[in-house]
Every structure is written in C-alpha cells, then in structure tokens.
C-alpha cells in the first residue's frame, strides 16, 4: 500500500474536527445553547399564539431560530475556524502532510453538518418539551432536512470570511454580517414588525430565502420552494466565488 485509504483519513479527521470544535466553548456554547436562549426570550412568550394562516407562532419561531442556528454553525464555524487556523499556520503543516486538501475540507463540512443536526435537535426538543409546540414528526423531519441541505450558501460565506480576514477580524466580521442579516430576514422578530425599508430589503437576503425553506415546511412560506432554492443557489455561487478568490490569493502568497 503506497498511501493510506482516503475514507479512514476522512473519518479520523472528522472525529478530531468534532472534538476540536466541541472543546472550544466559544463555538459549542454559541452555536448549541445560544439559539435556545434566544428562543426562550423571543419565542416562548408568544408560542401559544396562532397566526392568521393557522400556523402556530411557536412553531414558526422555532423554524426561524433553527435557520439562525444552522447558519450560525456555518458562518462562525468556518469563518472563525478557518481564520484561526490560518493565523496559527496549521495550514502549512497540513499542506506538507499526505492528507489531501479536499479531504480536510470535506471533514470540516461533515463536522459542521453534525453540529447543525445537534443544534436543530436540541432546539426542537426544547420547543416540544418546554414550549409545548406540536407538529407531526414528518414536519419536524422536513424542517431539519431542508435546513441542513440548504445551508450551502452559509458554508461558502463562512469560507469567504475565513480566507478573507485574519484571526482577530474574523469574529467581528462574522457578527457584523450574520447578526444584521438574521434580524433583517425576520429570524428574530417577524417581518411585519420590522421597519418598512427592512421589509422591502428582506426578499433580497440569503437568510430570508433560507428561512423560507423551513417556514414552507410549516405551510407559512411566502414563496414557492423552487424560488427559495434558486436564490440560495445564486448566493452559493456568489459566496463561493469570493471564497475561492481569497483562497487563491492566500495560495499565491503562501504556497506558490
């Protein structure tokens, strides 16, 4: 055998990436606990109300914070994670190792998907157990699957932030981009309670269309599924272009 099998590399790498993320409270608490805390403040007090279209406000906000949680795992995990590793020059050692760069990236994506799943399961369980919010298992499953699959643009956004900024700037930049994006897309406060200009802006934002995937599963979507997917595809292409551009700039500087 001239090289180690790629699958066992991928598994070992993913295992360690999960451990590394889990042991950094700034990551694990922020992404697993914070959405539950937010839901407690913004969602629980109004969870019993039923909207005009018959959808429970509790379920609607649970879907919103689910979208917030997964996006946060992606944007903060990749944005800050990649910037930190670049700052510590982990990339140089990894580059000299037999681990292919693509396997490393795949392990990071798998890790983020695992954390997203855990974040969603914790949040939804909390909503069911503490908030008494009821939906059929099929609806919960649809929300989880759609949010995990649709998170691609936020993975790309995370990589773009991670390769574009340094370890000191990345947390600030990630917050500066992701928090306003979430607010303006109606993830924290329903859209109709936001200022008019933000209501007009929202339909152009990635988080807005991303949350539609989950709202749609509840029957509270404002647009057809394919429209949301098209927007998300476009944003994925945009963020990926930015990420690849920064990545190439770094490649030229460090490894050319």
């Amino acid at each position, binding site marked *: 055998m001239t090289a180690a099998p790629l699958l066992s590399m991928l598994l070992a790498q993913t295992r360690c990436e999960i451990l590394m993320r889990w042991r950094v409270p700034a990551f694990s608490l922020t992404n697993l606990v914070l959405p539950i805390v937010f839901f407690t403040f913004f969602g629980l007090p109004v969870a019993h109300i039923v909207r005009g279209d018959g959808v429970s406000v509790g379920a609607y906000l649970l879907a919103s914070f689910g979208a917030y949680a997964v996006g946060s795992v992606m944007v903060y995990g990749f944005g800050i994670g990649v910037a930190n590793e670049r700052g510590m020059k982990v990339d140089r050692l990894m580059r*000299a190792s037999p681990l292919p760069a693509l396997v490393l990236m795949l392990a990071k994506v798998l890790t983020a998907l695992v954390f997203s799943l855990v974040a969603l399961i914790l949040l939804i369980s909390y909503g069911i157990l503490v908030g008494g919010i009821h939906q059929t298992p099929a609806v919960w499953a649809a929300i989880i699957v759609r949010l995990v699959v649709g998170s691609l643009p936020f993975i790309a956004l995370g990589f773009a932030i991670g390769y574009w900024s340094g370890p000191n700037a990345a947390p600030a930049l990630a917050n500066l981009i992701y928090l306003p994006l979430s607010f303006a897309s109606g993830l924290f406060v329903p859209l109709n309670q936001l200022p008019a200009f933000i209501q007009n802006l929202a339909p152009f934002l990635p988080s807005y269309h991303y949350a539609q995937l989950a709202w749609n599963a509840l029957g509270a979507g404002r647009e057809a599924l394919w429209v949301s997917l098209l927007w998300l595809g476009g944003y994925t292409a945009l963020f990926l272009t930015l990420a690849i551009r920064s990545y190439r700039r770094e490649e030229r500087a460090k490894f050319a």
Partner: protein
Amino acid sequence: MVVELRGARKRFGEVEAVKGIDLAIDAGQLVALLGPNGAGKTTSISLMLGLRRPTGGEARLFGLDPADRRARSRCGVMLQESGTTGVLTVTEIVDLFRAYYPSPLPAARAIALAGLDAKARARINTLSGGERQRLYFALAVCGDPEALFLDEPTVGMDVEARRSVLESIRALSAAGKTIVLTTHYLEEADQLAHRVVVIDHGVVIADATPREIKARIPSKRINFSFDKAPGESAFVGLPIQNLEIADHRVHLLSNEPEAVLRGLFERGVTVRDLEVTGADLEEAFISMTRRV
C-alpha cells in the same frame, strides 16, 4: 533517489532566495543543510516538499512531483513556523497523523521517540515551546515514513530535550531512514550528519563530509588587545582568517587557536585581555565564501 533539486530557483518578488541549487539525496543518507539564518535552507526544504513551486529548475521527491500524495505518504515533516490547534491531546493528534500514513508506528512508540511520554495525555496548548517542538517531531515520525524532513528540529529545546531528539534522529538513521535536516549549528551537523551541504545566499557553497567542512570553516574567534600595534607581518604564515585590527584590538578567526597564540608569543607580540570563543557561523561563512 529520494530528493532531487535540479537548478532549482525560487524568487519572492525582488528577492531570489534560492539561486540555482543542484542537490541529489540518496536513500539512507543523513544530510544536514547548514547555513546562517536567511541563507535559503527553509526555502530549499519547501521546494523539496512541494510547499513552494520553483521559479526555475525542477524538484522531484521519490522521482515524483513533490506534491503527489504517493510521494508525501513516504515523508514525515517538521516545519518551522507551523502550528496546530491546541485543544487536542498529544495522543489524539498523533493518532490523527498516523491515519494519514499507510503503515504507521504505534502512537506510544512515536511519542516515546520524541521523549514526550509524560505528556501523552496533555492538551497541546499546555505544552511548553520545547515540548511543542518535540510534538512536531512525533508527528513527523509517527507515520513511519521512509524519509524525514526536519527544519531546525532542535530550535527552542532545552539541553536534555535536544540530546534525546538527536539520539532519536541517529537511531532512525541507523534504521535506514533518509533524513534531511536544516540547522545553523555546525556542531549539530557534525554530530549527526554523513553529509553536510552548506548553503549561503541561496547557493550551495560546500557539499562534503562533516570532517571536511569543519576543516574549512574556522571554528574559533580570537580577540585580544595589545600595547604596541603588531604589524601585519606578525601574522604571516599563521592559520588565521578574517584578520581585523581596530581600536587597539585584534580580531581573527582560526581553526587552531593554540598554534596561532604560540606563533604570536614566539614573535614577541604582547597579548592582553585574551578571548577565545566559538566562532559565529555567519562570520565563518563570510570567510568561506571569500575563499571559494
């Protein structure tokens, strides 16, 4: 052939760090790349490993493109200026790196080779600088690769750690590994290597056994003051280099300080405030490049 650089050049903007190096390293050799800081040693290793692309000439690793996974799978590396995230334990990260190789050593064996047994369960961010350096050594050897590339392996280590790592390097070499290391300590190259390649200003200025290199590099610096200025003639025929007389003080380099002093005494030169110290490699190289 493990490593081949053929007319390899590397330019960074205006600076040419490596100016045409030819170097072939056979399996089983223990080669030290010796040179002062900024001589082009790290760039040369980066070219050998495909971490940098030559701007001229060619680099091959096991006859392949150095970035080829089949070539990388036969190499263990320890780099300067590379880090790792701190929250894993020593054993966890060694296990991770073992997974990169087809037939790795047991983790405990790699950790023992680096002398880190006592820290096997410690998190990386609790290690001292020297311990961290030993961890990188463990990561380099854990895959049981045929070739090891060690860039300044003992930097930042205390005397004890350094001795144990040098011992491990010797043992790995005796077991048939090809080892390429860089150092700016002549003694380290001398203690370890079969072959010393001296690099300065991006070119190979010598490629020989440690014994030959030592004979060519003046290893001691002699400084003294005088009452009556000795003429240049007082030094004729003595084994000295880089003679400077300034400010009522004589500075020179030599491999045979005893013979120099005996000669000076016989010629009646008064010697006060005598100092004999190990020569700085940097200045020794200057004298070497002058002679070549």
